[in-house]
């Protein structure tokens, strides 16, 4: 009997085009939108205007050094444009203007202790652009100072080894990325929106259960030879399969369209099954608990959007305050996203993500338990 209920539900879902929009169209739209913005994360460059009043070899080398640092595309403006550029910065239309004054090259190369300078005009509100640029300039200034020191040391006639010892930094940063694959916007957003929209299936589940209850369908089915629990099981299986297809389609989209590496496919499959069990288990529980469709919508949105923010689906949870991160640990979304990141970014396998699978399975079991406990009340309200 449960198979008959599940098959009927699939026939109905195929006829409801809105379901495709909510479960596939909307998440793909979000992935495309955010993927378009962040897929080139680390490789995109910010355009910086500069005016080179010095026009010397040293000033040109300075500009090239900035570009060489990565992340910036330097665009030269004429001297006469300076007033306009500064006004544009004041109006918030441009973020930064770098001005290399006359005499820059001479000052850099002189050994008499005179100091070269560059001016950075910036929009106070464009900290995200100007801040990193100032750090790059600071780094370049240090390199110029090191060059001067080296020249002075060479003039002393001391041994090369001694000079190198003096020039060596007292602190060396040893960068050792431990992830098997690299992190990018896509590895954040594809799993993030997959996890988020799995919970949107709860809306469809609530609509069908409440609709069947209010239309008298549940009462009518009770007059047949069907065991009541077959109805619950059939509906659950129907939506479980839909959630599995939804996850597979969204991850495949990320893989084929954006080249996202999936990592251990077996581990991804285990995670997707557990996630689908969790989403539909909680859906069953909510469908049995709510009195009306509107109430169900409100709770689902709270669960889906609240969990998305706290669970780190929209941005890494490391960026959140400690208290919010702690609260996030109580959401299934956090554990699902963590497990996806573990597999896709950190190259982990099923054996490594078992705590996440366990938490998701616990949420699924809790949802099923609530649904079974409340099913009698649901039936009573349907038959009354």
């Amino acid at each position, binding site marked *: 009997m449960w198979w*008959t209920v599940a098959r009927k539900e699939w026939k109905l879902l195929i006829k409801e085009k809105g379901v495709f929009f909510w479960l596939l169209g909307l998440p793909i739209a979000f992935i495309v939108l955010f993927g378009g913005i962040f897929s080139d994360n680390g490789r995109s460059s910010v355009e910086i205007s500069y005016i080179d009043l010095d026009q010397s070899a040293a000033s040109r080398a300075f500009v090239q050094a900035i570009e060489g640092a990565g992340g910036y595309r330097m665009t030269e403006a004429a001297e006469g444009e300076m007033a306009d550029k500064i006004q544009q910065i004041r109006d918030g239309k441009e973020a930064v203007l770098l001005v290399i004054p006359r005499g820059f090259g001479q000052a850099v190369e002189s050994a008499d202790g005179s100091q070269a300078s560059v001016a950075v005009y910036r929009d106070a509100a464009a900290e995200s652009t100007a801040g990193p640029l100032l750090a790059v300039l600071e780094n370049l200034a240090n390199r110029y100072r090191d060059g001067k020191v080296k020249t002075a040391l060479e003039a002393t006639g001391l041994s090369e080894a001694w000079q190198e010892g003096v020039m060596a930094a007292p602190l060396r940063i040893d960068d050792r990325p431990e992830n098997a694959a690299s992190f990018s916007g896509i590895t954040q957003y594809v799993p993030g929106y997959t996890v988020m929209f799995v919970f949107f299936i709860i809306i469809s589940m609530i609509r069908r259960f409440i609709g069947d209850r209010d239309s008298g369908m549940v009462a009518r089915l009770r007059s047949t030879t069907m065991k009541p629990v077959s109805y619950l099981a059939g509906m659950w299986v129907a939506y479980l399969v839909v959630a599995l297809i939804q996850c597979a389609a969204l991850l495949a989209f990320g893989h084929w369209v954006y080249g996202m590496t999936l990592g251990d496919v077996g581990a991804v499959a285990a995670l997707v099954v557990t996630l689908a069990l969790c989403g539909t288990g909680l859906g069953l529980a909510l469908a049995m608990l709510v009195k009306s469709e509107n109430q169900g919508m409100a709770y689902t949105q709270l669960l889906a959007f609240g969990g998305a923010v706290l669970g780190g689906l929209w941005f890494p949870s490391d960026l959140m305050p400690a208290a919010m991160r702690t609260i996030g640990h109580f959401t299934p979304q956090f554990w699902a996203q963590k497990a996806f990141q573990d597999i896709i970014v950190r190259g982990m396998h099923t054996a490594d993500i078992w705590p996440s699978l366990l938490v998701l399975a616990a949420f699924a079991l809790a949802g099923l338990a609530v649904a079974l406990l409340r099913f009698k009340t649901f039936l009573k309200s349907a038959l009354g």
Partner: protein
Amino acid sequence: MKTAIEIHGLGKSYGGKTALRNISITVREGSCFGLLGPNGAGKSTTMKILAGLLEFDAGTVKVLGADVRRSGDRIREKLGYVPQSITLYEKLSPLDNLTFFGEMYGVRGDELKKRMGEVLEQVGLADRAKDPIASFSGGMKRRINIAAALLHKPKLIIMDEPTVGIDPQSRNHIFEMIRALKREGVTVLYSTHYMEEVEALCDHLAIIDHGNVIAEGELNEVLDRFGTQAVYLELAEGEQPPALPGFGKPAAQGRGWLLETASPLEAITGWASACKERALSVKRLEVVRPSLETVFLALTGTTLRDS
């Protein structure tokens, strides 16, 4: 004669409100039994109890010889329940809906295909089997609503107001279907607001009001016991009916007059003589059979539709 339904002293309350006080009904196998009463009288509650959908507080209920409290599953195999509301999936076709309900009743494979073909013929919608239910008229939906309860060849069909708001064509289809079921020996329990439907279909009936059975028996017996006989006279335009000594005053009805009396033979001969003496042009003069409408009025003091 075997009984299909035996109800004794049935009582049911919802949250302190009494729906059924003391219902006792016996329905013979193979008969069509009409359950008549105004809204809120307790018809649907009685039917839901018989279908095993509701628990009850007092009394005993046997369906097809089995106690509904103890043998619900066994009864459900032989029972078809047509609810008052149209409970179909409107985005699906009749074939999809019937496949779903057929399997819910345990009918599968070739047997189900055969039965779907038969019931679709019965309800006159075989040519619309693949169209979505949403495109159907109210009457067509009601016909499929009934068809869904017939797939497993039930011995008892409970129909809760199956003809509400439908067109005459659909009503005729449903009437023909019920008559065919009766011929096959299926027991039909039929609730309705419409007295003429009970008169047209049912052999037996019970009138329920405020959770009590206020009249029960064979149709003719109930009409004889509770109805008042009358004589109807229709004359040419402008002519007035002659007064009959010893009888009451006739009441205007339609184009003529109705005289209620316990002695219809004397009244009709009296009116015939008086009209002849006065050379009145008689268009119709007949003894009128008591109607359920008048029975209901006599028993409850109100008409069914007003109540």
